């Protein structure tokens, strides 16, 4: 897998999904790894969910709670700020990625930190925090095993939950031997993990500043929550004297008790466990326990644009479980890199274009990276109707092209075909004539009872499929002949 320096959240044009998918589809190692991984998690998730007689009740409560928050986000964020401050933490507001990064590097510098330890946070990937810190002379150490792996490899994540899913153990062994100086290393997962553990332990104990994301933050109490498996989250949020948490503004939940919903939905939807190994809930700072200084950075970076779209708003319900990735037949085959975004898969296809805005061909192609099968909606723990938002965004992309594309847009073959078809369908006589014309016009393409090659954009169809010719009599012609009038 090549390094992808350009994605939707970086400056510069981003490749389209079709272009990137073409490449990743032919990576058989990726397809095997990813296929095996997603099938495994899918099955486990089904078991974990089937155990729950009140699963649908929880989903509905999760959806409704998120809806309540989104409709009153300003109030909840103000409450959150108040609670965190009262508990001894400090709240910062960041309009965009640059501002968030500056705030964080500022805090690190104020504390003389040249190295920081990080828990996985997709929000920090979105803002490209590590690159920014590096420019400011601060080295950020990723401490999730998978994040460590891809950081060492100089790559980007391909899955929200299992970022290094595209790497096999032999590749990881080589990486560790080369970059961590490990000698005589087998490729057994437990050996590999041991190397990482020792390497990171030193970092945890020495770090002056820890950086995390947040799964949830409670407006009522100011409690912030990190859900994890390995324990590095606990390390980063407990040991360093200063903790900085970057959080998208949509992550706030109303009350402490609302965890009873989300902490049942999240583990079963993500790792398909009844409960993940470690969850940390901290409220401001505690005397003599954990960091002496806690900073919460609330970031917008396009979320208010998503909020403003009444149909798109539900996208912000997302609790980053990745259940949708694991059931998506497209993601399973193309992998995460094909989406060219830190948010891949079905959720990424709707979140990315909404965060970065319509008008860039790369993110604009994402709503089309779907057959609209609806499997994602079925498993989403907070009931985001992803297919509905996909269709809605396709509309926005299309209208944007039509209204802003200028004269060239009028000549776009797809647009012409669609306008023509719409005209034809608007009138039964035109429609019937078009049927007859098509039947006649197909003969250059039909050979030996089958259409072997379609022209232009339609060639993709006949590249892998036969097409039977249009029959000599349409249904309505048959009806007219045999049944007379209506």
């Amino acid at each position, binding site marked *: 897998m090549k390094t992808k320096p350009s994605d939707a959240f970086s400056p510069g044009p981003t490749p389209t999904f079709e272009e990137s998918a073409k490449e990743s589809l032919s990576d058989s190692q990726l397809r095997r790894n990813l296929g095996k991984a997603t099938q495994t998690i899918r099955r486990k998730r089904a078991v974990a969910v089937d155990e729950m007689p009140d699963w649908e009740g929880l989903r509905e409560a999760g959806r409704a709670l998120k809806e309540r928050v989104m409709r009153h986000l300003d109030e909840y*964020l103000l409450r959150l700020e108040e609670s965190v401050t009262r508990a001894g933490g400090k709240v910062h507001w960041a309009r965009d990625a640059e501002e968030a990064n500056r705030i964080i590097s500022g805090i690190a510098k104020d504390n003389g930190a040249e190295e920081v330890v990080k828990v996985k946070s997709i929000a920090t990937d979105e803002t490209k925090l590590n690159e920014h810190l590096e420019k400011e002379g601060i080295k950020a150490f990723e401490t999730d095993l998978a994040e460590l792996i891809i950081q060492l490899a100089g790559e980007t994540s391909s899955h929200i939950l299992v970022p290094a899913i595209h790497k096999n153990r032999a590749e990881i062994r080589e990486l560790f031997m080369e970059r961590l100086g490990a000698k005589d290393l087998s490729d057994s997962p437990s050996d590999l993990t041991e190397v990482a553990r020792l390497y990171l332990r030193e970092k945890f104990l020495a770090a002056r500043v820890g950086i995390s994301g947040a799964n949830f933050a409670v407006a009522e109490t100011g409690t912030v929550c990190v859900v994890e498996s390995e324990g590095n989250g606990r390390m980063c949020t407990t040991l360093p004297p200063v903790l900085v948490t970057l959080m998208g503004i949509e992550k706030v939940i109303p009350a402490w008790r609302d965890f009873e919903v989300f902490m049942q939905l999240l583990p079963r939807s993500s*790792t398909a466990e009844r409960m993940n190994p470690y969850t940390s809930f901290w409220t401001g700072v505690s005397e003599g*326990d954990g960091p002496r200084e806690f900073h919460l950075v609330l970031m917008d970076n396009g979320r208010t644009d998503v909020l403003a779209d009444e149909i798109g708003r539900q996208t912000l319900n997302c609790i980053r479980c990745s259940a949708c990735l694991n059931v998506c037949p497209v993601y399973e085959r193309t992998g995460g890199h094909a989406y060219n975004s830190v948010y891949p898969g079905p959720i990424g296809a709707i979140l990315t274009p909404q965060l970065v805005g319509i008008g860039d061909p790369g993110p604009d192609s994402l709503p089309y990276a779907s057959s609209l099968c609806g499997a994602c909606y079925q498993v989403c723990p907070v009931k985001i109707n992803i297919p509905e938002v996909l269709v809605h965004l396709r509309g926005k992309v299309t209208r944007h092209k039509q209204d802003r594309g200028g004269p060239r847009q009028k000549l776009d073959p797809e647009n012409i075909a669609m306008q023509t078809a719409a005209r034809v369908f608007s009138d039964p006589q035109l429609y019937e004539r078009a049927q007859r014309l098509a039947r006649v016009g197909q003969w250059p393409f039909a050979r030996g009872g089958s259409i072997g090659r379609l022209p232009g954009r339609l060639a993709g169809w006949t590249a892998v499929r036969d097409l039977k010719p249009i029959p000599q009599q349409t249904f309505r012609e048959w009806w007219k002949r045999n049944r007379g009038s209506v």
Partner: protein
Amino acid sequence: MEAEQGFGLVATAKETILWRIRYATRDVPEEERPEDVSVEREYRKGDEAEREEIVARFAERTAEYEADVHRVGHDELPRTIEEVLKRRDVRRLVIPPYFPREWIPEGLETMHDAARSRLSNKELDESDGVLTGCALGIAQTGTIVLDAGRAQGRRALTLLPDYHLCVVRERQIVGLVPEAFAGLERAVEGEGRAITFVSGPSATSDIELDRVEGVHGPRTLEVLIVG
């Protein structure tokens, strides 16, 4: 780009974001309060099962995560702790504040953590293990809940040592997850204490999805359920 509204000459980030949010949600009626958005909670809030069933389920599910789980009678507890620690070859043992003295075995180097004399990270790292109580146990998910309170201590105590021996009293075990969050309200709302949910020893599935135990945090978790 949208106009930035400000209350002074230049709006702060906070003002800008709040303005953006209000503009984005202008479809929401002015008079609507958050509580007006109805949230139906059609899920189980409490477990109706017998206590014995709940305790047994806790033992079973905690063990499923590869934690070692034993059930002991109240009188056997001190002896069991001693045996377990001996079996694990634990010599230097970290003890949190307010841990019942009568349960701490003899013949060990005990490292007591106290507000006035905190153990250093190095000392914690070099210990052989930590012995604590807990705040709650959740049977549904096999989870131990620590609330940095009595007999548990500050978070680093249960994080750095490689072995965690945890005593759970039967009456601390609740059936379902909602009961746990209800039970923790006071610790969080009243005192803002840090809460940690522990469900098995640490694990990762990041290498070819093979679940491997033990990355950070105690790689061995042993649980004694005492009646």
